[in-house]
């Protein structure tokens, strides 16, 4: 039954999910805003994070909160390696090359995962019980996931706006040549930014296990890629915090649409929501490609 409480519940759940989605998308906007490179293999990094969370839990009994830190570090190093190994060589070249490169890297991660851990889906439950929101049971892990995501984004904000390194990064976004003239090592900024972006993405993958307890398999990243694209386009592809807000909005939209589709019984709500995500991308690109939230 659709009561006001139910709608409120769905909305709040959407907000929690949305902060997580926002975190999962920030890396994409960060990379595009600073390096002007679209991470066409975005979802695979989320997948890696999920696997990290799984193995930490299965082998070491660590909660996803702890493993998300490890995930960030791993993503950070992948970012550095990727920049110096490959990205630095194609920066400034045709867009096609960097698009194909990131796409191929994403595929590579998928295949390594499949080779190492097989394609069978894995999962685990960090049973923490649930809390009661407006009379509906909401898993505590999701609440934690949402809060932690928001905290991480806050830390990022503080870093970008209040620290020297953060300001250096922002100056490079505004004016790479000017920044270089002021003594900013643009190449280091690029490497650092990619490292942060991928670190955040992998960390979000680890946190994803707080929201979904199963389905960890090599190809789980694809829906995340589409979703991240939709959110980034919605919030402005170059604006990380725009993406975060768009993520919030998207979490609510996704939850509500899932609820409406289940009620309307129009086919499989799961798949239909994903289809609508894609339709939304096209709609936003048609009407306002620079994003709703970009001034």
């Amino acid at each position, binding site marked *: 039954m659709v009561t006001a409480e139910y709608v409120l519940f769905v909305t709040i759940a959407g907000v929690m999910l949305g902060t997580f989605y926002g975190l999962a998308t920030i890396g994409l906007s960060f990379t595009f805003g600073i390096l002007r490179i679209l991470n066409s293999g975005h979802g695979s990094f989320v997948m890696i994070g999920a696997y990290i969370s799984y193995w930490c839990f299965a082998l070491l009994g660590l909660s996803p909160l702890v493993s998300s830190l490890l995930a960030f570090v791993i993503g950070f190093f992948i970012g550095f390696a990727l920049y110096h190994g*490959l990205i630095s060589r194609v920066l400034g070249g045709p867009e*096609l090359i960097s*698009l194909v490169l990131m796409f*191929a890297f994403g595929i590579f991660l998928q*295949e390594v995962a499949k080779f190492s851990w097989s394609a069978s889906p894995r999962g685990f439950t960090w049973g923490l019980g649930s809390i009661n929101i407006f009379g509906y049971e909401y898993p505590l892990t999701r609440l934690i996931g949402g809060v932690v995501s928001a905290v991480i984004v806050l830390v990022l904000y503080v870093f970008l706006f209040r620290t020297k390194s953060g300001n250096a990064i922002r100056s490079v976004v505004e004016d790479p040549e000017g920044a270089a003239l002021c003594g900013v090592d643009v190449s280091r900024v690029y490497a650092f930014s990619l490292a942060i972006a991928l670190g955040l993405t992998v960390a979000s993958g680890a946190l994803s296990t707080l929201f979904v307890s199963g389905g960890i398999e090599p190809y789980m990243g694809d829906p995340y890629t589409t979703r991240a694209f939709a959110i980034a386009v919605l919030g402005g592809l170059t604006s990380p915090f725009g993406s975060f807000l768009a993520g919030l909005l998207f979490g609510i939209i996704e939850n509500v649409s899932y609820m409406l589709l289940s009620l309307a019984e129009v086919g499989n709500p799961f798949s239909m929501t994903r289809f609508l995500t*894609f339709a939304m991308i*096209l709609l936003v690109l048609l009407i306002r490609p620079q994003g709703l939230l970009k001034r």
Partner: protein
Amino acid sequence: MIVLDIRAHRSLIILFLVSLTLLFVRVGIPETRQVLSILFFYIALSEVFNLFTGLTLYVCFGYVAFVALGMYGGGATIKYLLSISSPPPLALVLACAFAVAGILALILALAVGWISVRLKGAYFAIATIGLNEGLKNLIEGTGIWGGSSGLVIANDLIQAYNYDTFIFVTSELADYLIFTVYAVTILCIYLVIKSRLGYGLAALREDEEAANVMGVNVVRYKLIVFVISATLAGMLGAGKMIKDVAIYPPQAFAVSYTVEAIVISMLGGLGTVTGPVIGGLIYGILKYELTVSFPGLQLLALAPALMAMCVMFPYGIVGWLRRRFKGSKIESLLI
């Protein structure tokens, strides 16, 4: 009146003859059927991919969707036509399948293309990457055309015509049809390159903004090649459906097609007609060897190879040869 100036178009004619030779090999030497059959499909797909991405340098990651749409459209058409009380002659059924496949792909390409072709490369990539997921989820979500269970037309074909016809159609005719799509595609690429459209696209590749100021209607040109290539991809899907007689969402939308088409095109040379053929032959042989020695690991080896090509060898074999022998006969032969 089109006067066939053989000398002027000799490069295309040579390529066509070489392709025909391969076809004859496939027909004449049964042992090669398996390998060459798959090869034709991949080369055809790569040429289709090349028609757009090679000529505009915009990456369309969504060819899987157009091929799948063609498979579904063609398959559904066949299923429908064969279910009516007195099924039409085979030729008509197949023709309708191709037509429907092409039209569906054309419509989808117009819709998606019209929106995304006017945006920069990254946004275009976003729209086309989402296309695969979007279409797959639409089919699985609404259950049309068999939904998650897939679409199978084997029985329909056997019942409507006899078993021998069925074997002929799926084993032999399908390959000829795919070859025909390939032939049409290379003709299209050739005609485009030599035309005013080709000049505009060349300018667009170099510097889209400058091309716009110089009078090239960049949006329209991108859209034209996008729609043509998508339509051909749809028809290729129809051919594939006739060959496989079945389609299931997970395989149909597998990302491996995209990767292989990109690898073959880049290996051979983006923007060239001969490139995908050479790239396809090399890749086909490599893949065959790999499948024999390390089954299931193609993508694991392909992905790094693709990354290496991006960084070190972006022009491909034909591209490199053309630059090396610039101004000579070799350059004009390797179109």
